[in-house]
């Protein structure tokens, strides 16, 4: 019943470096349904960031088709694309990329500026989003006063600002310690569960990837492997550890008593 929010057909992307052509993506096909939590893995240089850039409309495909919510973005001019990025996409970066001279709330308000006219409404929504990522009371703090994990939460709130069709996260836990890494993955998983946000996350971390519902392995610009993640079990109300039935909001499995998302064996590093 869920409809595809992203359809990629025969996507090719090549860069020209001097006389050499680098095929970052070659004949890649991918379909992501609304509400999916997808991890993209793969060795360095396999084209993960390139793929995310093309999906996020910050880079153009060399050939092939990219449909977002059924819209062919490949043929769109820049004068239209910024609206797709603003309204349909939410970016989360490895380096957070918050504006240092704006406070948390103002950072979250940024993407709304071209969209929501009323300043009070923007403020209200930004505060709600910050509460959703667990940062109530920190609205007026500038990035330098926030920890790395908190900064990434602000960035996630900012990505959610315009209620995007897809959250694109490139190594969102790459600059975080294991404690914060866990919390951010949990936050993304929760957003996916409770808000139904579609998330495509690039990660090198197989344990983080395991907490999504679908893992894709990229190699030389192609998807070479696909695997289910633990998150799928939770979505199906099954304990990922013992398989018994659980409720949506359960933190621990009523049967095996193990924590459902942060079991030690999954995040032991």
């Amino acid at each position, binding site marked *: 019943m869920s409809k595809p929010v992203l359809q990629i057909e025969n996507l090719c992307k090549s860069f020209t470096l001097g006389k050499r052509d680098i095929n970052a993506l070659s004949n890649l096909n991918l379909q992501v349904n609304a509400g999916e939590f997808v991890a993209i893995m793969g060795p360095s240089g396999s084209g993960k960031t390139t793929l995310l850039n093309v999906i996020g409309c910050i*880079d153009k495909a060399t050939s092939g088709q990219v449909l977002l919510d059924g819209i062919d973005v490949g043929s769109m001019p820049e004068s239209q694309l910024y609206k797709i990025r*603003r309204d349909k996409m939410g970016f989360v*970066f490895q380096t957070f990329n918050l504006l240092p001279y704006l406070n948390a709330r103002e950072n979250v308000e*940024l993407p709304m500026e071209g969209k929501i006219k009323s300043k009070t409404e923007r403020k209200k929504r930004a505060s709600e989003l910050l509460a959703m990522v667990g940062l109530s009371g920190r609205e007026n703090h500038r990035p330098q006063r926030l920890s790395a994990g908190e900064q990434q939460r602000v960035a996630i709130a900012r990505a959610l600002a*315009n209620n995007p069709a897809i959250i694109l996260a490139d190594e969102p836990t790459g600059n975080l310690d294991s404690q914060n890494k866990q919390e951010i993955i949990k936050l993304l998983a929760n957003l996916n569960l409770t808000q139904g946000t579609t998330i495509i996350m690039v990660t090198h971390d197989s344990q983080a990837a395991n907490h999504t519902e679908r893992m894709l392995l990229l190699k030389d610009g192609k998807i070479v492997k696909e695997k289910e993640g633990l998150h799928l079990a939770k979505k199906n109300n099954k304990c990922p550890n013992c398989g018994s039935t659980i409720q949506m909001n359960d933190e621990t499995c009523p049967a095996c008593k193990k924590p459902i998302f942060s079991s030690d064996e999954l995040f032991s590093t």
Partner: protein
Amino acid sequence: MAIMISIPAGVLANQQTATDLASNLSNTITQTGQSINQTLTQIDCSLASSFSGFGFQAPNSTNFDRSQLGQSGQGSGTGRTFDPSQFGGGGTRGQFGGGAFGGGQASPMNQTLYNDINSSISGVVAVEPILQASEGNNETMSMFGRTFTRQITSYTIEGIPLTSDLIDNYPILTTNITAGRNLQAGDSGVVLLSENNSAYFNADVGDTIQILDQDFTVIGIHGTSSVSDQLTLYMNLSDAQSVTNNTGYITSFRVFAQNSDVVTQVARSISSLHSELTVTTGQERLTQLQTLQSTYNTALDSAQASIGQTQTTAFEEIIVVVAATSLIVLFVMLYTVRERTKEIGTLKAIGFSNSTVMGQFMLEGILLSVIAGVVGIAIGIVAAPALSSLLLPSINLFGNTAAAGFTRNVMPTAAASVNLELVLIAFGASVALGALGSLYPAWRAAKIRPAEAMKYE
């Protein structure tokens, strides 16, 4: 950067000051020349400098320093282009000391020694003995790390003999009475103040003032009729002699000749009878004045040329500064855009349009030039007067030795004020050029690829 605009603007403002100054002095010279013309039968006599103290026996001076007698004019050198001692006051009062121009070497002399002038020289119809003394104090000021001391004259007492014979027949009184009445024959214990004196003593007609501890009633106020009498108060000679503790002494006298044909002969006779005297006829003073006038005109021409030159330079500076503003904004903004590539990429990735980014950076560039402008103007308003007077040495044509009375009362303030209108125009221009200068950096910012946001350092 606007400090660089304010200073030349201050220099430009000074031009007005110089022009005022020029016309003011021109008028004065013409005025003085006219009054000299009317009094060609007069001969002014005072002690030549080398005879200072001749016939002078120091009386017991208690309350008045005799060394101040007639010393308000400060020039004494010869061969100076602008020697105040040559600039006598003409037919109006105050030839010997008093004003800036009225200097000369008036030294106290024993009145009785000169009784023979009236009796033994033919062609002399009257002699008017005069006592002139100035009261004032020294003022020390520091400018540009140097210290200048100048004498500030508070007022000059001029005692004239108030006899009906002299008053009725010779122009010994000032004529320009603005309040009260003029001095009359037989007046004593009364004083005729200048407008400056009136302000200094805070006294009006009918008030009683104290001069050197004696009471005098203000009988009238005289307007100025030459530069030399602005600080001069007139009283009976005997009053002046007693109040300054100089009974029997005068500082100069004026001889009236029968007619203009005998003036030269009379002057020669005076000189041969009293070789210690400096004898100046009205005709000689007129000649001196004309020499001075031409010297002054030459100086003024060169001053104006130099001001004109400075003005041109100031305009050029403003153009350069305004152009520099846009270059500074250009480079600062280019640097900013380069430094903030990732931030700009992020803004574009989260949905900012090219035009929004461009507008943002234009605004920043304009803000930059506005802030710089406001700060610069604030500094410039403070610094410009001092700096522009350094840039305008010709304003000091009259030098610090051009006595205080003159500086204070005749010369318009030479310190520059900033020409606000010009500063605003230059400010506007620099802001406009600042906007122009941020155009390219802003365009560069708009062209940054959103994928830059993905890079990590």
